[in-house]
Each structure stands twice: as structure tokens, then as C-alpha cells.
């Protein structure tokens, strides 16, 4: 799955701001951290503001602040502001001479998209930030803290 540039910028910005909802950052500060275009990010932040996910703080020392519930907002909520990758979106395929083959390919591609959509809907911003903190991609698996087993009551 390839997300549009604006969508990825939006995810960077929302996750950066949601990591500390009290903090406000300018578009330039976020863009510098991620090495992306501040001009493009500013447009993305305006869209996020219209969607109610960030608040614009005006004046000297202004910037953007997260405005939402990070346990409720999901990655899919952010993505759908910028593009339609929903389960109902038909997989675009070029016109084919053999419609059965084309339908078969669409069926398989829809299966892939269905998995992706379910995953993006299930991961809240809060869960995503916890995932980033655990860095499971380093070990190739989730790092679970070792805990002493507790005795069950009863």
C-alpha cells in the first residue's frame, strides 16, 4: 500500500503533536524534524485543523496543538481526510480483454486492501505511539516486559 505524500505528512504531524498534547509546534519545527517540506506541511495542517484534529494557536509563539482523543482517533481517521482507501473503494484496474481474469485479480487485491483497512482502523494514535516506544521492528517482534506471574485469586 502506498499512501500519498500529504497523508504521510499528516500522520507525522498528528502523531508528533499527539505525543504531547500540551505542546505546540510550528509547521517549520515539525517539518525540520521529519525532513519534509514546511510549505506542503502547512497546507496539510490546515486540513487537519478543519477536521478538528489540531488547533491553530495564533500570534507570537503560535503553532499547532493536538485537539482530539488519542485513544479514539485511529490511523484510518487521519488517512481518510486525504484519500479514500476504504473497504468500499473499488480496486482500479486497466480495462481488460478477459473480464474474468480482471475480476479475479480485483478479488485478490481487495483481500489485501481489506486486511490493510482493518489494521489501520484498529490502531489508535495512542496505540501507535506505544508501538513506536516499543520498537518491535528492531527485534522483529513485540517486546513484552518480563513480569513476575501473579497468583490468581480464588
Amino acid at each position: 500500500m502506498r499512501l500519498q505524500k500529504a497523508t504521510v505528512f499528516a500522520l507525522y504531524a498528528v502523531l508528533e503533536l499527539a505525543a504531547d498534547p500540551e505542546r505546540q509546534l510550528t509547521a517549520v519545527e515539525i517539518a525540520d524534524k521529519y525532513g519534509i517540506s514546511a510549505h506542503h506541511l502547512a497546507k496539510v495542517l490546515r486540513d487537519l485543523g478543519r477536521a478538528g484534529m489540531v488547533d491553530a494557536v495564533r500570534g507570537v509563539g503560535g503553532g499547532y496543538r493536538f485537539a482530539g482523543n488519542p485513544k479514539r482517533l485511529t490511523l484510518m481517521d487521519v488517512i481518510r481526510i486525504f484519500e479514500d482507501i476504504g473497504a468500499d473503494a473499488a480496486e482500479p484496474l486497466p480495462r481488460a480483454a478477459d473480464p474474468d481474469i480482471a475480476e479475479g485479480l480485483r478479488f485478490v487485491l481487495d483481500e489485501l486492501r481489506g486486511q490493510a483497512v482493518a489494521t489501520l482502523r484498529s490502531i489508535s494514535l495512542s496505540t501507535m505511539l506505544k508501538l513506536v516506544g516499543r520498537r518491535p521492528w528492531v527485534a522483529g517482534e513485540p517486546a513484552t516486559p518480563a513480569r513476575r506471574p501473579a497468583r490468581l485469586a480464588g
Partner: protein
Amino acid sequence: MANAQRSERNHPDRIRPATEADLPGVIALDEEVTGLLKPSYWRDMFERYGARPGESRFFLVAGAGHRIDGFIIGEVRAWEFGSPPCGWIFAVQVRAQQRVRGLGTRLFEAVCDGFRAAGVDRVRTMLARDNTVIHAFFRSQGMIAGPFIQLEMHLD
């Protein structure tokens, strides 16, 4: 651990192994959540996971008195398609009014403690793709996609 302590303050229901007296509460909670009454299924589940609790089978409930607010069921399974022993969770329910207060997390942590005590270091589950609530719950506990794929077909 801090999460578990915070969850316990928010929701003081005791987590304990299920007894036969809990079955009506479990059946009622499942019907409330799923809209389906299936007493024989839950009696069978209790026979297999509750009545003969070993160190590898867990049927845990949370509730005060005969009111069951949540339950979780799991067991240690081994060598299915080459998988070394691991914990499997195959049922979890929390009463709708009691959600987002940490009870599901406490049930999850309790069954994971049981799995650890049984000597396994991995836990798996399977759920309906469109069940966003449960999917988000397991994700919030730290679960990610595993190395197995679920497949099925119609039997004509």
C-alpha cells in the same frame, strides 16, 4: 505494571477462575454482547476450560457476586503447523457499560500471567476482521500481526 494498578483502581472487580455458579452470568453477558443465547456452548467451554483447570487452561471471570462483568478464556497450544507452545486467547468479553475502565486489560494481563507461569513467552489470538472494537483492544495491549495466515473455504 503501572497500567494494571491504574486499571485495578478504576475497576475493582476481582479476577478469578470461573466456577459453575458463574455460568449463568457468563451466558447472560455473552448474550448481551453478541445477541445470541448459546448455553450449551458455554457449558461445554466450562467443562473443557473451567471445570478441569490445569496449568495450561484458563477460564477467568471478573465480577462481584453473581454479576459477571467480563471473562477471558485461553489455553497453551503446541505444534499446530509447527508452532512451538504458545498461549491462545479465544474468547474475551466485557460488559459494554464497563468498558474503557481497564477491566479488559486486567483480564488480558491475568491470562498472560497464567501463560507465563505455564512456561510460554508468546500469546496469539484470532478475531473477525470487521470487529474493530476487539481488534483495537488487542492492538492496544501490544499485539501485532503474527506469522500465520487464516484461510477458509466453503464446503460444497
